[in-house]
């Protein structure tokens, strides 16, 4: 089956993009307006690394929502598991890095496997609510701080005794940036491989018509559980990167708002395509950061108060943009460019669920 996949020009383009991104720490280049200072400064690299991390996590969520048609409201749980399990093992139990990472990866497979097996007993909207409930349980557990393990509302700073020196300190941000970029590349390749594999084709068939898959003698449950587990595992991996990047865990990463943000990222970029959600994740994270800066700026402070209130809230702007997007550009960024490339396509064909898979290549 893999023989049918021809990497072709888009693989060359992807390689070139990643090569350029990897070279950023070496260029003393300034993009005024978009980033403060040179691109190679630690602050900018930190922001870019966060963007890359969320691009990867958005890609992992896209396997579920974009390719299998499973609407989960609880993807933050698996991301947060990567953050908190690693953090607790390193900081509270003083494990060495390698066993801590191995244990986290094991949790990253077991947790979505077990919870997915229960949640997939129901489908559609009920599935969305059940995933939300499971993630909420995780959030409650973290906030409740059992045995003083998670640090509750305060969060849990990372004990760096067992972290290699290269990954500590502001001056070494570039190495963290490369790790984040490596995570994005890995996720991208795994997702590309997965959606072109035999199970990946079944996922897309389930998205289009689950009943037909059943009639063909396949068991949709097993394929959906595979998608759920792989997607949860990749999110856990992203959590580890996030923990190293921020040097600690805060309970915000467990909340429903983060799961919803992942949904926004994927739809923003274009569900069911590969580079769309990656772009959406990076763009969302960037906008979230910049809008927060904007909200505390003097330009906003000088506005009348009725304008100040909404503009001081990044989520208000992002939520409103999202609503407009669903109404007017349901295919997201990938849908817009896809439509420009193929002007003969009917503009009504751009619902979220039926973004043509060929846009992905």
């Amino acid at each position, binding site marked *: 089956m893999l023989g049918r996949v021809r990497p072709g020009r888009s693989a060359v383009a992807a390689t070139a993009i990643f090569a350029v991104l990897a070279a950023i720490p070496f260029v003393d280049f300034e993009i005024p307006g978009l980033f403060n200072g040179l691109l190679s400064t630690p602050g900018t690299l930190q922001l870019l690394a966060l963007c890359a991390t969320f691009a990867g996590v958005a890609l992992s969520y896209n396997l579920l929502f974009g390719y299998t048609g499973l609407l989960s409201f609880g993807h933050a749980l698996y991301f947060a598991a990567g953050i908190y399990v690693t953090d607790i093992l390193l900081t509270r139990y003083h494990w060495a890095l390698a066993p801590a990472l191995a244990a986290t990866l094991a949790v990253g497979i077991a947790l979505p496997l077990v919870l997915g097996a229960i949640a997939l007993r129901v489908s559609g909207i009920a599935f*969305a609510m059940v995933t939300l*409930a499971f993630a909420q349980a995780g959030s409650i557990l973290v906030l409740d701080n059992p045995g003083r393990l998670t640090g509750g509302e305060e969060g849990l700073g990372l004990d760096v005794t067992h972290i290699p020196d290269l990954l500590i300190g502001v001056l070494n941000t570039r190495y963290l940036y490369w790790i984040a970029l490596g995570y994005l590349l890995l996720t991208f390749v795994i997702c590309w491989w997965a959606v072109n594999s035999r199970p990946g084709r079944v996922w897309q068939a389930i998205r289009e018509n689950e009943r037909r898959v059943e009639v063909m003698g396949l068991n949709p449950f097993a394929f959906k559980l595979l998608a759920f587990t792989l997607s949860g595992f990749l999110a856990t991996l992203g959590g580890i990167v996030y923990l190293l990047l921020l040097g600690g865990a805060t309970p915000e990463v467990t909340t429903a708002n983060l799961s919803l943000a992942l*949904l926004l990222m994927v739809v923003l970029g274009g569900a069911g395509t590969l580079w769309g959600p990656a772009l959406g994740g990076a763009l969302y994270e960037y906008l979230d950061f910049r809008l927060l800066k904007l909200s505390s700026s003097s330009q906003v402070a000088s506005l009348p108060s009725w304008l100040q209130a909404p503009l001081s809230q990044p989520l208000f702007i992002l939520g409103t943009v*999202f609503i407009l997007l*669903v109404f007017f550009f349901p295919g997201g960024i990938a849908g817009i460019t896809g439509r420009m490339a193929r002007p003969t396509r009917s503009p009504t064909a751009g619902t979220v669920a039926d973004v043509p898979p060929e846009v992905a290549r």
Partner: protein
Amino acid sequence: MSTVILLLVTGLGLGALYFLIASGLSLTYGLMRVLNFAHGIFLTVGGYASWWIAVRLPLPDPWRFLVALLGCLVVGAIVAAAVEVGLIRPLYRRHIEQVLVTVGLALAFTALVQGTFGADPISYPAPAWTQGVTQLAGANIPNSRLLAIAVAAAVFLLLSAFLRFTRWGLIVRAGVENRAMVSALGIDVQRAFTLVFALGGVAAALAGALGALYFGNIDPERGTATLIFAFIVIVIGGLGSFTGSALAAVVVGLLQQFMNYYSSVYWGFSAAGDLSVVLLLAVVLLWRPQGLLGRSVG
């Protein structure tokens, strides 16, 4: 013994709030397969609108709250109808997009309330009676719990009567059963849906005002936080089943209160109530995926 009675009434009070939110969610889902993720904002609207009116009214105590309550119900109905006509109706039958739009609305609206009134809880001008307690079999029961239970019971009876005895109720029940058939008979299900949506908004706004009495304050995040438990309630009760949501709301409210109390007393672990509700959901799904009173759907 008095502790048990206190927990019983408090749990029923919490269940009453869940029921008020879940009833609207369940009916809108049953009728049109619409999941309104923004249903929690009607609770926020109810809480903040009644607070906004109450602090401006120069009336003596019980009247001030009653007028504020009526006002917030009107606002809740208007906001809900506006959401249905403006955001849900244009996306008729595109269920995923409807969910996405309501997700965006929930995020944007909560952020707007935070930006306008602040992210911190605001203390609520509750009437003196609701802050007092009533002696019941040796237990001191907070009146706000009793009020929540009485109102939710009244809403349950009113909505049941509406569904059972009115023409609109007949259309709604028939629509939940088989919408295509009702439409084929020339009945406008869309209008019935707008009505049900607005009624759901009123019930949630009521929960917002009663919840403000229950917790003593209003909080921009409470809508979403309560909504998550309302989702659990309607899945346990059976999606689309009105009686099922009422039953599940009571079960979930009681379980949460009892577990929270006893686990924090005996194990020093106060989150067990919330977690056991999620566990109950998992058990119900494994045992009966269609919910307690739901019919199996494909």
